[in-house]
C-alpha cells in the first residue's frame, strides 16, 4: 500500500493498527494466564488476570477514541475506511475475549476449592487451543493474511468439538458424584465461554477478510457446538 500524501494520516492509521496489535497480544496473554491459573490451581495468578482486565478495557477505550478522531478528522474512504471500522469491530471482540479470560479466572477460584475432577485436562487443552487461535488470528491481522484468516475461521469446529466432549464428561461426573457439582458447573461455564472465544476469533477473521478484500464472507461457516441440545447421559438412551 502506497503512502498517503498527508503523512500524519499514515501515522494515525499506523498507530491505530499498532494499538490493536498491542491489545491482541495483551488479550492473548490474559487468556493464556487464565488457563495457566486453572492448570496450576494458582489463585494468585487468577487474581492478577482479573486485575489486568482493566488494562484491556483501557486500550479498548483508547482505540475507540482513535477511531472517532480518524473518522472526524480524516474522512477515511475505501481501504482506510475499512481499516478504521474493522479496528473498532476487532477491538470489541478482543474486549469480550478479555472479559472471558477474567471470568475464567474468577471461576478458577471456585474450582480450586474442590479436588480436581474429570474433564479438567480436556478443558485445559481446550483453553490452550483457544489461546493459540487468538494468537494465530492476530498474526493473520498483522500480515493482513486472508488465507490464514479463512483457515482459522474454519478451524473453529475443533473448539466446538472440545466443548461438546467436556459437556459429556462433566455431566457424567456430576451424575456419579454430586459433591463436585460446584466445580463441575463452573467448568461447563468455562467451556461454553471458551467456545464463544472461538466465535469471536471467527468474527475477527471475517473482519480481516473484509479489510483486505472489501467483501463480506457470505457462505455459512461450519459450526459444531451441540451443547445447547446436550442432556445428562441417561437421557441419551431414551
Amino acid at each position, binding site marked *: 500500500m*502506497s503512502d*498517503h500524501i498527508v503523512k500524519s494520516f499514515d501515522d494515525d492509521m499506523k498507530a491505530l493498527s499498532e494499538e490493536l496489535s498491542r491489545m491482541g497480544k495483551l488479550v492473548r496473554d490474559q487468556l493464556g494466564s487464565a488457563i495457566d491459573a486453572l492448570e496450576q490451581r494458582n489463585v494468585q495468578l487468577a487474581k492478577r488476570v482479573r486485575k489486568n482486565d482493566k488494562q484491556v478495557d483501557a486500550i479498548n477505550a483508547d482505540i475507540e477514541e482513535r477511531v472517532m478522531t480518524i473518522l472526524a478528522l480524516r474522512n477515511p474512504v475505501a481501504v482506510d*475506511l475499512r481499516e478504521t471500522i474493522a479496528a473498532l469491530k476487532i477491538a470489541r471482540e478482543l474486549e469480550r475475549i478479555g472479559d472471558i479470560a477474567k471470568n475464567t479466572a474468577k471461576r478458577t477460584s471456585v474450582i480450586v476449592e474442590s479436588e480436581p475432577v474429570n474433564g479438567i485436562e480436556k478443558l485445559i487443552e481446550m483453553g490452550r487451543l483457544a489461546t493459540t487461535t487468538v494468537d494465530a488470528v492476530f498474526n493473520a491481522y498483522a500480515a493482513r493474511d486472508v488465507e490464514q484468516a479463512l483457515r482459522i475461521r474454519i478451524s473453529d469446529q475443533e473448539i466446538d468439538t472440545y466443548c461438546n466432549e467436556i459437556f459429556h464428561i462433566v455431566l457424567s461426573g456430576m451424575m456419579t458424584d454430586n459433591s463436585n457439582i460446584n466445580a463441575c458447573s463452573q467448568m461447563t461455564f468455562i467451556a461454553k465461554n471458551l467456545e464463544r472465544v472461538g466465535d469471536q476469533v471467527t468474527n475477527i477473521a471475517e473482519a480481516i477478510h473484509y479489510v483486505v478484500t472489501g467483501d463480506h464472507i457470505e457462505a455459512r461457516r461450519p459450526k459444531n457446538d451441540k451443547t445447547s441440545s446436550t442432556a445428562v447421559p441417561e437421557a441419551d438412551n431414551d
Partner: protein
Amino acid sequence: MTQLLTSTNKVSYRALTPELELMGQVNVTTETEFDNAKFTCRDVRVHYGSLEALHGIDMNIQDNGVTALIGPSGCGKSSFLRVFNRMNDTITGARVSGEVLMDGQDIYSNDIDPVLLRARVGMVFQKPNPFPKSIYDNVAYGPRIHGLAETRVELDGIVETSLRKGGLWEEVKDRLDDPGTGLSGGQQQRLVIARAIAVDPEVILMDEPASALDPIATAKLEVLIDELKENYCIVIVTHSMAQAARISQKTAFFHMGDLVEYGETAKIFSNPEDKRTQDYITGRTG
C-alpha cells in the same frame, strides 16, 4: 420546449465495452445498465489541437439522478462534462469525436442547433456568473429569448417557479428588482441554477459548483441538487470527494484521459476495484 428527440432505450453500458473490460481498461464495478440512460457515449475523444485529452470514453449517464465525475486536475473530467452541451465547440482548437446520444439522438449531428441544445442541457460553473441585471431579469432572460412566455403574468409565473425550484424564492421574493450581483455567493449560485431551470432543461451540468461557497451555502446547494435530481439528469464535476459521496448515485473516476472506474457511488467509496481509484480517493501518492 420542443422535444428534439424522443425514444429512451434501455442501453447496456456493459454491452458497449466488452473489449475494454477484457483489456482491463475499464472496471464496471456494478451493473451500470440503466432503464433510463439519458446519455450514451461511445468512443468519445476530445482533442485540443494535437493533444488528445480524452481517449475514447464509453459511458452511459442515468436520467433523474446525480452522476459525479471525479479525478485529478487534467484528467479530462471537465472536457467530458462540456461534451454534453457542446461547450467544447466554443473553445478554439477543441475537437470532439465519437458518438454522444441524448435520448438516442446524436447531439453532434448537423441538424442539432447548439443553442437549443444548451437550453435543454443547462450548465452551472465554479464561479457564479449572474448577468449584471436584476434578479428577475436574470431568471427571465432565457424564457424571453426563447419566447417561452406570451404574457407578463406568464413570465412572472416562470420566474417564481424557477426561483422556488432553485431554493431562492423565499430569500429574494421581496427584492426581485435588486441586482443579481448583489446577492451572496451561495445565493448567486442558486440564482444561476434558477436561471438554468427557467428554460425548462432536461439536464443540468455543474462544474465545481460549490468550490467557491462556504459550508452553509454548500449544504443548501447540495440539498437543492438532491431535490432537483427527481426531475433532472445532473452531471457534476467536483474535487470534493466528500461532496461526490454525499450527493451522487453514480461516480466515474477519470485519470489521464481515461475512464478508469464507474459504478455505484457507495461501492466506489467503500471498495473501489482499481488501485488508481483507491489511491486517488484515499489521498495516496500512487
